[in-house]
C-alpha cells in the first residue's frame, strides 16, 4: 500500500538513483494536528511546516488541518499559525510562501469525545481531497497526552478516517511517552494498532532526531579508527548523560508520578545506549537497525543489588546559575509528599562478548548544572606507563565524548606533554570537532525532518514496539524497587545531582564526568 510500493512498480523516468541533487519533495497530502493549540505545535510543528514549505519540500496541494476545542473560525486559526510561524520559523518569512500555505489551512472545532467533530473532520478531509488534490493521503499528528490516544484512535476508526482508499495512505504520528510501564505500553500499542497498521504508526522521538542517530552511525561505522577499540578490551565504562537545567515548569500534571527515569531513561537514554553498544547493522534500513538495537536491549542485565547501583534524587531550592529557583515540592501542582524522582542514575551491563565487564552508567535529571546530552566512552588506562609516577599524576583516562546537544560534535580526551618545564609532565587535553563549525549553520530542525519523513513514508529510525517493550522490561524492576523506598534524596538545584549518585559510581571506583 501507499506510494512506496507503488513507486517500485512505476519507474519514474525522471528519477535516477545517481541523481543526488534532487531533493525529496513530499507527494500530495495533508497533516492533521490534534492538540494544535499546544506548546509543541506552536513552538515546533507549525514553524517546521512553514520551513518545509519555504524550502520547497511540500507539494502544492499540501494542507494543514488543526483540530482543537477552541471556538475558532478558519481565519482565527490561520492568524494563530501565522503568529507561530513569524515567531519561530528558521527560514525568513515570505508573504508569498505564506499565502500559498495559508490557502490549505483548515480548522475543525471539537473535543475528542465528540463524534460529530470527527464527522466534520472527515468532511474537511474529503473537501481537501476534492478541491486541493490531497488524493486521500493524510497524516494524523497526536500532539496530545497519551491518555487521549485511545479516544482519538477510536474516533478516527469510527469516522472512517483511519482507513485509506487504494493507493493512498493514512499515517499516525505519536510522541513519547509510550506508556509508563510494560503493561501500559502494550495496551497503548494494542489500541493504536487496532486502528492503524503497524507500518503506518510513526513513533517519534524528536529529541533523538534522525540526524543525531545517523551522525552516531556514521561516526561508528564509517570510520576505521573507532570500531577496533569499541569493546571491553579497551573501554573501561560508558557514561550517558542527559541533563536539563530547567525544572518541570508547568508540567506537574504530566511529570508527577512519572519521574526522570520513565520520562528520559526509558526512551532517550536506552536508545542512545543501544546505538552506542550495538553491533554493525547489515544495512541502515530501519528494520536492520531495529534488529541490532533490540539485540543489545535484550542483552542488558540489571545490577543484582539495585540499592547500590541505582540512585535517585529530587531537586531542592537553590540557585540555578544566576537565578533563584524553588524546589520540586514547591512546584505548582506537586504533592508535598511526592516521591517522584527528578534525577535518576542507573548502572546497566550488557551481556555480550563485546561488552562483558563494561558498565553503562545512565543518568538524567532536571535542574542540573547545565543543559547537555552526551555519550562518553571512557577508556582503560594504558597497560603500562613508561613515565615517572609524578609525570602522569594528572593524566586521566582517555575518552571519546559524543556531544548530542547542544553544540553537536565529538571531543577526544587524551594526555599530552605539558610544553617546556624542567620535568616531564603529562596532562589531559581535548581535541574537538563540532558539526556547527565544520558544516552548516542552517541544518534543519529535527521536526522538519520528522514531518517530511512521515509524508514521504520513510520509516523513522525510532523505537519499534519491540524496543519500547524491551526498554520497559529493563526499567520496570528498577521502578518497582524504587517504589519501596521513601523520599528521593534531595539535591540542590544547579548541582550535578544527589550525593547518592556520586557514591554509586565511587563504589565501582569511578566518578561522573563533568560535562
Amino acid at each position, binding site marked *: 500500500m501507499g*506510494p512506496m510500493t*507503488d*513507486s517500485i*512498480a*512505476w519507474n*519514474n*523516468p*525522471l*528519477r*535516477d538513483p*545517481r*541523481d*543526488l*541533487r*534532487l*531533493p525529496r*519533495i513530499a*507527494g*500530495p497530502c495533508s497533516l492533521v494536528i490534534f492538540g494544535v493549540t499546544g506548546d509543541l505545535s506552536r513552538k515546533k510543528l507549525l514553524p517546521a511546516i512553514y520551513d518545509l*514549505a*519555504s524550502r*520547497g519540500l511540500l*507539494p*502544492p*496541494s499540501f494542507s494543514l488541518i488543526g483540530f482543537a476545542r477552541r471556538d475558532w473560525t478558519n481565519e482565527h486559526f490561520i492568524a494563530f499559525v501565522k503568529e507561530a510561524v513569524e515567531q519561530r520559523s528558521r527560514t525568513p518569512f*515570505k508573504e*508569498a*510562501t505564506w*499565502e*500559498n500555505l495559508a*490557502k490549505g489551512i483548515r480548522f475543525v472545532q471539537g473535543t475528542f469525545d465528540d463524534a460529530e467533530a470527527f464527522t466534520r473532520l472527515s468532511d474537511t478531509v474529503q473537501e481537501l481531497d476534492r*478541491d*486541493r*488534490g490531497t*488524493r486521500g493521503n493524510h497524516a494524523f499528528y497526536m500532539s496530545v497526552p497519551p491518555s487521549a490516544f485511545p479516544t482519538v484512535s477510536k474516533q478516527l476508526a469510527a469516522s472512517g478516517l483511519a482507513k485509506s482508499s487504494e*493507493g493512498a495512505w493514512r499515517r499516525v504520528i505519536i510522541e513519547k511517552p509510550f506508556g509508563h510501564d510494560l503493561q501500559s505500553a502494550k495496551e497503548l500499542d494494542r489500541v493504536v494498532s487496532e486502528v492503524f497498521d503497524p507500518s503506518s504508526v510513526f513513533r517519534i522521538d524528536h529529541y533523538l532526531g534522525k540526524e543525531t542517530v545517523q551522525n552516531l552511525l556514521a561516526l561508528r561505522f564509517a570510520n576505521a579508527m573507532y570500531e577496533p577499540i569499541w569493546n571491553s578490551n579497551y573501554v573501561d565504562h560508558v557514561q550517558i548523560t542527559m541533563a536539563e537545567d530547567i525544572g518541570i515548569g508547568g508540567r506537574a500534571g504530566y511529570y508527577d508520578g512519572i519521574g526522570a527515569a520513565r520520562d528520559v531513561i526509558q526512551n532517550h537514554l536506552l536508545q542512545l545506549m543501544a546505538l552506542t553498544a550495538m553491533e554493525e547493522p547489515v544495512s541502515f534500513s530501519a528494520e536492520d537497525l531495529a534488529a541490532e538495537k533490540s539485540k543489545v536491549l535484550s542483552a542488558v542485565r540489571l545490577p543484582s543489588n539495585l540499592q547500590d547501583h541505582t540512585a535517585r534524587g529530587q531537586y531542592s531550592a537553590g540557585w540555578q546559575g544566576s537565578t533563584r529557583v524553588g524546589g520540586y515540592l514547591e512546584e505548582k501542582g506537586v504533592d508535598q509528599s511526592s516521591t517522584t524522582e527528578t534525577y535518576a542514575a542507573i548502572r546497566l551491563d550488557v551481556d555480550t562478548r563485546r561488552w562483558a565487564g563494561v558498565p553503562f552508567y545512565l543518568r538524567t535529571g532536571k535542574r542540573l548544572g547545565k543543559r547537555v546530552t552526551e555519550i562518553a566512552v571512557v577508556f582503560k588506562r594504558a597497560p603500562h606507563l613508561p613515565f615517572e609516577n609524578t609525570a602522569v599524576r594528572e593524566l586521566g583516562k582517555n575518552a571519546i565524548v559524543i556531544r548530542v546537544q547542544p553544540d553537536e560534535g565529538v571531543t577526544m580526551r587524551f594526555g599530552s606533554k605539558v610544553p617546556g618545564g624542567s620535568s616531564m609532565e603529562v596532562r589531559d587535553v581535548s581535541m574537538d570537532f*563540532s558539526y556547527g*563549525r*565544520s*558544516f*552548516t*549553520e*542552517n541544518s534543519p530542525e529535527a521536526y522538519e525532518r520528522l514531518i517530511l519523513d512521515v509524508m514521504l513514508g520513510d520509516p523513522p529510525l525510532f523505537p519499534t514496539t519491540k524496543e519500547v517493550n524491551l526498554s520497559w522490561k529493563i526499567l520496570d524492576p528498577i521502578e518497582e524497587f524504587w517504589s519501596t523506598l521513601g523520599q528521593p534524596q534531595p539535591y540542590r538545584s544547579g548541582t550535578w545531582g544527589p550525593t547518592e549518585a556520586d557514591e554509586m559510581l565511587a563504589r565501582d571506583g569511578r566518578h561522573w564526568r563533568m560535562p
Partner: protein
Amino acid sequence: MIIDMPNTHTSEIAQKIDELHDERGEAATGRVLTLLILTRDHNLEEALETANTASREHPCRVIAIVPDASSDIDPDKDDSNLSAQVRFGADAGAGEIIILRPRNGLVRHQDTLVIPLLVPDAPIVAWWPTNPPASPSKDPIGAMARSRITDAMNSDNPEATMERLRGNLDTADVDLSWTRLTVWRAMLASMLDQPPHLPILKATVSGPKNFLPLDLLRAWLRLRLDVPVELKTVDDATAITAVHLEREDGELSLARPDDNQAMVSFPGQAPQPISMPIRSDEDCLSEELRRLEPDDVYGEVINTGWNLLYS
C-alpha cells in the same frame, strides 16, 4: 577587517592568516574546503559576495586569483610584485578571503602560488564565475581541484564556451547552468511520482532565447523521457517560464510566469500555486559545495542528451 598587503610573498600571507586566527582565538582547521575563485576585477566583488553567503553553510577559505590585467604585463619578467588582500571577520563570511593579484611571470604559475595557502588536507573547489579555461581539468588550478565549477552563461560567448566545455568534459566538471535547474527538475520528478503513471508523449519547454539552462533542461527531458522536446521562445523572459508534459489523459504543466510563484497543473485539476523563487547564484554555489562528488547525470545530459537534440 581588510588588510592590504602590497608587494608581498605567500609565506607572509600564510603567516598573517595564522596570526589573525591566533588573535581571534579560533582554529583554521574548522575550514572544510578551499574555494578558489578565478576571475577578473570587474566581477570580483560580486563573486566574493556569493562566496561569502555560501561559506556560511560551508566554512571555507576563499582564495581569489585576479591576474593583473594592466598593459605593461610581461610574462617573461620574473618580478612578480604580488599584491594581496586578506579579509577576515565581518568582511569574509564564515571563513577568510585571500585575494591574490599576480603579475608578470607569476601569472603562469597560479597553482604553485596557491599551494602554500590551501587548507591542509581539505578538498579544493575551483570556480570560474565568468570565462573558464577551454579545458578546466587541464588548467593548472583546475587540475588540483576536486570539483570544477564553471558558469558558461556569464562568459563572453555562452554557446561557444559550452561547446568547449562539452568537448573537454571531465567527471569533476559542472556548470552552474545545470545547478540552476535543480528546483525545476525536482518539481517535475515529483509530479511524475503521482498517479496515474502514464507515459509522457511529448514535452515543451519555454523560456528566453539562447538560454543555456533551458537547453540543458531540454536535453535532460529528451534523454530521460525519450520523446520529442519542443522549445518555445518567450521574448521578454529572463528565466525558464514553463514545462508542459503531454500525456494520454491531458497535460501536466509547471509554469513560472513571474519571479517567485509557480503554478502546477495536473489533468482535470485546478492549477495550484507554489512558491518557487528564481535561484540565486548563492543557492547554486552552496549546492555545489554541498556535493563535491562527480555528477554523472550532468555528464550524460550535456553529451548524450545534447547530441540527441542537435544531431
